[in-house]
């Protein structure tokens, strides 16, 4: 009896060693709803203690699993209840203080990000929501490991244009107060439409109010593996064959994530939540979603046909991955961040990828306008227009969309913004210079769309 297949072993090793297959993140999602108190110091104390209690072994177990399966687990993170909900139990709001507490807890347990410094405001602000939003620039300036996400729109509620306008100013101010690092604060700030409540990926991870006390969510990756598999097909293989190959690879990637997720959850003694089967690129050569487009036959990302290729890729990844796991959630699909993908950076530098093409691609990708650097003197009303457009795509198409643009202070179109690590680098790209002011300053909400007469 054959107890193992040597081809399978070599294929797995090759996927890890040559094509950068990894577990992108194990994210401990934790409710902080029992940390409410009238006294903000007590809230801080409860939050700190709870995070330490649940996450103290997160790194240790991740290291163990990394060794046992020889697969890198790149990031270990924590997602918490939107902090606006917790902080508004206090008599005197102090969200910057709570951000510092989260940052200290993150450093103590050794995770690289805590997500959930955010609020859900698609229909309007509570007093706590507004206080949190207004604290974001300072909170992201004085912390290192906090990510903030604000849900400003949904298919059920429409677009809160007051929130969009507010967030455009917050994005710009956050970039301004972190100008010494090319506005890195804005790289940790995202506006959502239809934000998933169990997403393990930053900057948008948080632990939604319908979620359990705690759970372990996993994000897998592997664009390099997909690109290599597609490139190995004959050049004249038809699109059905191509889609099938992507599905097979997505299945393999996802089973690995599921295995690690379940083992990790068991060791932590908490339930396994979901696997987010996203293709998340890194700036490392060969770990690029743009590289998949080239393997599919496009000259480069940005060529006409890119949106169609991305649509097919996104769908095939979901179809392959869904078979491999009992619980799929989060963002699940293909990410197209500019600064975090060597192929996207190159395409943007060469002018192949424009802002408008990126926006078109977001109508079929799994997230949205992601890690796009724009000139620091872009008016906030223009940023509000950018956010409104992207929210409209999500609202009408009943999908998650997001905006993470960075108005890089003191830099102009063609300059480079450099962040290093997984955040990478990106050229400043041109946005439309026409004014959006009259529209975005009308105030109120874009009403929820009709869900029939789909055309």
């Amino acid at each position, binding site marked *: 009896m054959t*107890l*193992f*297949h*040597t081809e*399978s*072993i*070599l*294929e*797995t*090793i090759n996927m890890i060693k040559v094509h950068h297959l990894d577990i992108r993140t194990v994210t401990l999602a934790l409710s902080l709803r029992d940390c409410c108190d009238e006294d903000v110091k007590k809230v801080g104390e409860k939050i700190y203690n709870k995070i330490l209690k649940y996450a103290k072994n997160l790194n240790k177990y991740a290291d*163990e699993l990394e*060794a*046992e*399966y*020889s*697969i890198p687990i790149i990031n270990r993170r924590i997602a918490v209840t939107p902090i606006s909900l917790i902080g508004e139990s206090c008599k005197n709001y102090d969200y910057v203080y709570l951000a510092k507490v989260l940052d200290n807890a993150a450093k103590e347990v050794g995770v690289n990000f805590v997500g959930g410094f955010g609020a859900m405001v698609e229909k309007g602000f509570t007093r706590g929501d507004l206080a949190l939003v207004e604290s974001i620039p300072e909170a992201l300036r004085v912390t290192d490991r906090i990510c903030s996400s604000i849900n400003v729109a949904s298919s059920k509620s429409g677009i809160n244009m007051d929130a969009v306008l507010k967030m455009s100013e917050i994005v710009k101010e956050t970039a301004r107060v972190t100008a010494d690092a090319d506005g890195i604060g804005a790289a940790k700030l995202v506006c959502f439409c239809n934000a998933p409540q169990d997403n393990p990926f930053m900057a948008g991870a948080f632990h939604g109010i319908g979620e359990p006390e705690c759970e372990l969510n996993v994000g897998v990756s592997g664009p390099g593996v997909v690109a290599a598999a597609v490139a190995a097909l004959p050049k004249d293989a038809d699109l059905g064959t191509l889609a099938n190959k992507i599905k097979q690879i997505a*299945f*393999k990637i996802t*089973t*690995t994530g*599921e*295995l690690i997720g379940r083992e990790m959850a068991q060791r932590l003694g908490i339930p396994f939540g979901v696997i987010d089967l996203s293709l998340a690129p890194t700036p490392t050569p060969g770990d690029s979603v743009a590289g998949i487009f080239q393997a599919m036959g496009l000259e480069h990302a940005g060529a006409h046909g890119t949106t169609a290729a991305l649509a097919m890729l996104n769908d095939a990844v979901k179809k392959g991955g869904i*078979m491999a796991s009992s619980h799929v959630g989060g963002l699940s699909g293909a990410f197209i961040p500019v600064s975090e993908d060597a192929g996207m950076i190159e395409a943007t530098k060469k002018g192949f990828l424009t802002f408008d093409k990126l926006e078109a691609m977001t109508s079929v990708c799994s997230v949205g306008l992601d890690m796009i650097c724009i000139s620091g003197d872009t008016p906030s009303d223009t940023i509000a227009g950018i956010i409104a457009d992207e929210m409209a795509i999500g609202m009408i198409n009943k999908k998650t969309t997001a905006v993470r643009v960075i108005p890089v202070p003191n830099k102009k179109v063609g300059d480079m913004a450099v962040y290093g690590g997984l955040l990478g680098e990106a050229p400043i790209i041109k946005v439309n210079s026409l004014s959006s002011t009259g529209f975005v300053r009308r105030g109120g909400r874009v009403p929820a769309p009709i869900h029939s007469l789909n055309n």
Partner: protein
Amino acid sequence: MKDEKIIVTLLGADKVGIVAELTAALAKYGVNIEDIKQTIMQDYFVMFLLGDLKNSTYTFKEIKDALDAVGEKLKMEIWVQKKDIFDKMHSI
């Protein structure tokens, strides 16, 4: 933990004593060998070994560290992985 199966994969230039070195280390650490396959691929020696940790008194980490040292001594690449990653990835 103890009923875990591992797959050890050894890759590199062929030389005298590869199997002897590896199996000696496995015996020392109480790992039972259930199957071995070896082949030459593009001038490289590749060996696959299925081991059972059931009767070992050592931890996975101790065994992996010992086998990594064997790989280093032989100047070969060595991968020590729990078997279920392959079972999950390559079957429906």
